[in-house]
């Protein structure tokens, strides 16, 4: 394991890998600082630029963008009370009051350093859990993989929306789209009305449409709402060490929580941040300060939402299961480069996961420095007019789609999914389950068919093996609990 870790750190002897990390960090801050854009959109927009680079450079760039976007989300939350990402909402509750008190520098310093500590601690946890998890997963049979994918999808569908039905519909849309193309086992074309569809629905153009192009339409819609003016800051570099000594328990607890919540498919950075904030308030000696400029509140929220980034990478690397839309897109990017995430990744391509671990650790000082030195510039980014942002995003989307195959077919897919994404956003149908189902669909079907064939046509095989039974039970419970709550809530209407 240590040898592999050295290989991971050794990858940074290639200057391109380090440049990739810097570019990812820079773009991540940029994307994170702009309210409305987030890591999912950032990663999808960056994928077209990674087609022609080395897989390691591509992975490091995408992962550092993902992490940096969570750092950057706090900047606009603190300075203009407009969180750059959903996970930074809790940060704004205490960050903005501190800005109003003239302590924006202190708030930013605590948020950036807490983010760094969150990533650092959670990557240690990732390192020590992902490898054993992948070794354990090597013993998984097809029935366990099927059940694992079902559990992942069910949790995502429930966490990503308030409505069980809409989450389920989104999941079915994704699964239905995943069946388009030639059937891998029989070679029969399914739902492929044009030969272009024989290889299946192209993932990257679909993602660009769903997350980025639909956002362009939302930006046009919101273009008459006033943009905030950024505030001035001072004292970002003069924070006494005592502040962090007092926050040590909060930082440790929130990083642990963030990592664990990040592992759960669908839970993600925002739930980690809210839960961690809530617990920090409950155990704090000064709970009355929360909401009025508590440093504990900022550090709890920021360390948890960044720790969730490493958490979300654990199921991706060890099991090949994406825990969030962003990691689903990263899986798509890995597949483009011929890398299949999952338990075999650690034996077939160990340089990939270990370079990711190394990059997360190396990214800590890099991102803290970029954040602290450039804080006032990142704050200005939020002032960029929406009209310019919308134009840039739309152009990159369509050009990125075209460049994926040098043909017009992916462009049409992007446009269609862009409009679909906008309509779904308006109807409150979540997009995350669509992407996850699209990515997991093939794995789900292949393992389902394989398990049934091996068992000689016995569909009960999924309930006979203990691991599969546990995973399916979690999936069933995760569907039943909100259903029971809903029935109880509506009983007295």
């Amino acid at each position, binding site marked *: 394991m240590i040898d592999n870790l050295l290989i991971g750190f050794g990858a940074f002897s290639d200057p391109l890998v380090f440049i990739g990390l810097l570019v990812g960090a820079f773009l991540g801050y940029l994307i994170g600082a702009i309210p409305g854009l987030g890591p999912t959109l950032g990663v999808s927009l960056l994928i077209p630029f990674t087609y022609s680079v080395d897989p390691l450079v591509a992975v490091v760039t995408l992962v550092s963008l993902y992490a940096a976007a969570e750092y950057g989300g706090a900047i606009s939350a603190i300075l203009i009370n407009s969180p750059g990402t959903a996970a930074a909402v809790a940060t704004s509750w205490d960050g903005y009051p501190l800005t109003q008190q003239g302590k924006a520098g202190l708030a930013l310093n605590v948020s950036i350093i807490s983010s760094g500590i969150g990533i650092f601690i959670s990557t240690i946890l990732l390192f020590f859990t992902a490898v054993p998890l992948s070794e354990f997963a090597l013993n998984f049979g097809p029935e366990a993989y099927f059940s694992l994918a079902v559990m992942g999808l069910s949790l995502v569908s429930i966490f990503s929306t308030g409505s069980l039905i809409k989450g389920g519909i989104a999941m079915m849309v994704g699964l*239905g789209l995943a069946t388009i193309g030639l059937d891998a086992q029989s070679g*029969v074309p399914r739902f492929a009305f044009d030969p272009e569809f024989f290889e299946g629905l192209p993932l990257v153009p679909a993602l660009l449409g769903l997350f980025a192009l639909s956002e362009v339409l939302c930006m046009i*819609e919101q273009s008459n709402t006033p943009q905030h003016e950024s505030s001035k800051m001072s004292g970002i570099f003069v924070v006494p060490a005592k502040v962090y000594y007092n926050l040590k328990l909060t930082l440790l607890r929130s990083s642990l929580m963030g990592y664990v919540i990040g592992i759960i498919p669908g839970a993600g950075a925002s739930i980690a941040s809210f839960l961690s904030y809530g617990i920090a308030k409950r155990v704090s000696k000064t709970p009355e300060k929360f909401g009025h400029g508590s440093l504990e509140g900022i550090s709890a929220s920021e360390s948890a939402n960044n720790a969730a980034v490493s958490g979300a990478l654990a199921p991706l690397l060890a099991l090949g299961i994406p825990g969030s839309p962003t990691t689903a897109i990263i899986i798509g990017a890995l597949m483009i480069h011929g890398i299949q995430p999952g338990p075999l990744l650690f034996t077939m391509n160990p340089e990939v996961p270990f370079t990711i671990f190394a990059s997360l650790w190396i990214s800590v000082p890099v991102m803290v420095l970029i954040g602290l030195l450039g804080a006032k510039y990142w704050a200005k980014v939020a002032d960029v007019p929406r009209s310019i942002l919308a134009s840039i995003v739309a152009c990159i989307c369509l050009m990125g789609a075209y*460049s994926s195959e040098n043909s017009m077919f992916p462009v049409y897919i992007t446009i269609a999914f862009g409009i679909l994404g906008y309509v779904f956003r308006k*109807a409150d149908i979540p997009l995350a389950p669509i992407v996850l189902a699209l990515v997991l669909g093939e794995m789900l079907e292949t393992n389902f*068919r394989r398990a*049934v*064939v091996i068992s000689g046509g016995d569909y009960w095989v999924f309930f006979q093996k203990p691991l599969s039974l546990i995973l399916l039970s979690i999936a069933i419970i995760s569907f039943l609990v909100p259903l029971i709550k809903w029935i109880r809530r509506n009983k007295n209407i």
Partner: protein
Amino acid sequence: MKKTISAALLETPLKLSFRGLEAVVSVLLLSLSILYLLEALPLLSVTSGGKVGPGNFPLGIACIAIALTSLLLIMSLSKRYGLHDARKVTFDRALFVLFGAVIIILIGSQLASLGAFFAPWIMATGIMFCCQERGLRLLVVPPCIGGAIYVLFVLALGVYFP
């Protein structure tokens, strides 16, 4: 005065009942699910050596999708849950969003023939106009975006245009 009225007309938000929109979307998805089911049924006759052929999984998806979309439709139309729900979905600047979508479709579909410089230029102009951008910025920024996209994709990444 005339300008104000036309501007106000363009800016008027479109307000729809949330449950109404839900009903429309569920009808569309239900229709698509039924079409999907009809396409999946012939696949059931194809066998691939095992008991589960290429049609079984899509059949399952179609059945669950039909059940869920029907449930959503019933709920959005039912008196108990849907009709008493006064929530509204606001489509702010609906006409501009529609113009924006039309521009994206038109320019996007001509991307290969317009090329990596002119397509982004025209599209950026259209989208910026839809975002209420007027004046000098509307003239200066789009060609810069076109130039940047050309440099990035064609010169740096080597994307080929016929």
